[in-house]
């Protein structure tokens, strides 16, 4: 199980990076360009969701990869 946890660390980091790409490149930039009522979701994606998802998943993945979540028994 510990090996799986470590390997999954790479998956969490990748999902975190994928979230940055999807939320910023794929969504927020397009929404900023559209303007109007799209500003609200653009702000939510850029300022709140993206840092929160990418930051937490990235850090979690990093710890996981380093074996910080390995079971002791």
């Amino acid at each position, binding site marked *: 199980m510990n090996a799986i946890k470590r390997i999954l660390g790479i998956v969490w980091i990748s999902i975190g990076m994928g979230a940055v790409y999807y939320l910023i490149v794929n969504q927020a930039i397009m929404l900023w360009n559209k303007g109007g*009522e799209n500003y609200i979701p653009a702000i939510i994606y850029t300022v*709140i969701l993206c840092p*929160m998802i990418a930051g937490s998943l990235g850090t*979690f993945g990093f710890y996981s990869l380093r074996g*910080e979540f390995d079971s002791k028994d």
Partner: protein
Amino acid sequence: MSESKKSSMFSIIGASSVGTMIEWYDFYIFGSLATIISTKFFPAGPGSETLSFLSTLATFAAGFVVRPFGALFFGRLGDLIGRKYTFMVTLLLMGGATFAIGIIPAYETIGVAAPLLVLVLRLLQGLALGGEYGGAATYVAEHSPANQRGYMTSWIQITATAGLIVSLIVIALTKSILSKEDFDAFGWRIPFLASILMVGISYIIRRNMHESPLFSKAKADGKTSTNPLKESFGNKLNFKFVLLALLGVTMGQGVVWYTGQFYAMSFIEKIMNVPKEQVDSIMIWGLCLGTPFFVVFGWLSDRIGRKWIMMAGMLVAILSYRTIYTKMYETADIKGKTEILEKAHQVAELKENAKNKNGGVDSVYTFTKAFTDGTTYKEIKTKTLKNGEVEISEKDGKPVIETKKIVTITDTDKWTLIWLVFIQMLFVTMVYGPVAAFLVEMFPIKIRYTSMSLPYHIGNGIFGGLLPAIATFLVSNAQKVNSVAAESGLAPVIEKPYLEGLWYPIILAGICFVIGTIYLDGKDNKVND
């Protein structure tokens, strides 16, 4: 447990729960009145109801977003000076902010200051709630025997739903007493103003409570933290558990909760176009039927463990959301119903509109349809007239038309929707019933308030709180894509646009389920006392 201990335990739970429920009530009346608040404080001009509503949802969400900051501020205070005093402060802060929202003049009177003041007060509400929940959960858990923590804290878990139910009932009562015009003019303020009375009562009850015995003992032994923030988040050993609590429990629990209680409500009203009165009634019934299960799953978590109940709740929610929302949508979808053609009629009229500054008159077309099962459909198209001519939007050169659709459903359809909301409530109770005990047991006493509050409020406040705004936006975006395709004579690009909002909870709960299943220790931690 002896009878006297049991009775004192229930008075502790009662006093904590009533206050927490009132805080949730305060927090939710804003959401329950989002539609009317959007017209009073966030008018965006004709044809921009979505922008108005999204602004209101964003302000509603702002209260959720600051909850983690409240958790940090008041959590630190709670770990330094004690649980009891901290949640007394949060109660008063919440009550004051809610009352103040009730007395703010509308946008028409004080202009842009109105939405700004609402936003500031909403942020104060969020800060207060950020401090309240962790305090109440910790306080009750630290009074409970270790083998009954899930059951005892599940009463605190009920308060959030109870607060929403009370908010819906108070609003429904106010509406039933006042005429529609009076409710729109001033009646919507009554639920906000009533808060001060409830907070006063709760303050008196809580004033006589004693500090948590575990915290008092830790303080007497000199074992409390001198810097809870540093010990919670500066210490890697503890911080990794904060991350695990967030990504393995509260993120998924938050989105399942807010889908079942809030997105369901907004979906029925805004996407299915069911009138507000019917929506409130559906939600009150669905929530009331589901609420006892918080205690059932809290109690069960003491017997079979907390992790698997929460993970099962997430999994079943992920797998069934699309089916449930398809069934919900079809219940009120007039395309699947047989129309009584002779009952269809349309009326064209000119109506005075004080908000229309260009002549004060709107051209209104009302189409009404009736169906064999008793459903009625009304579509009201309002064209703004500018000096006698239909106003043309500067943005796209098209006439400014406001379209309002109302689908009044039958009692049978109403009960179908109540049942579907109830099923979602079961998922909510599975993930939310045991979570307070689970989080309390994850962290040691000296930094418990701070450490458990932060992941809880990020999961629920941010990931959950943003859900209605994001999901509504995703659906509205998908509908626009389809309408652009329809204008070009193409087939719809997205087959079921109304389901698009569900991707957000499904993806986040999916990630949380995998992390929780693999990384969380199934053995509930009883060593942190």
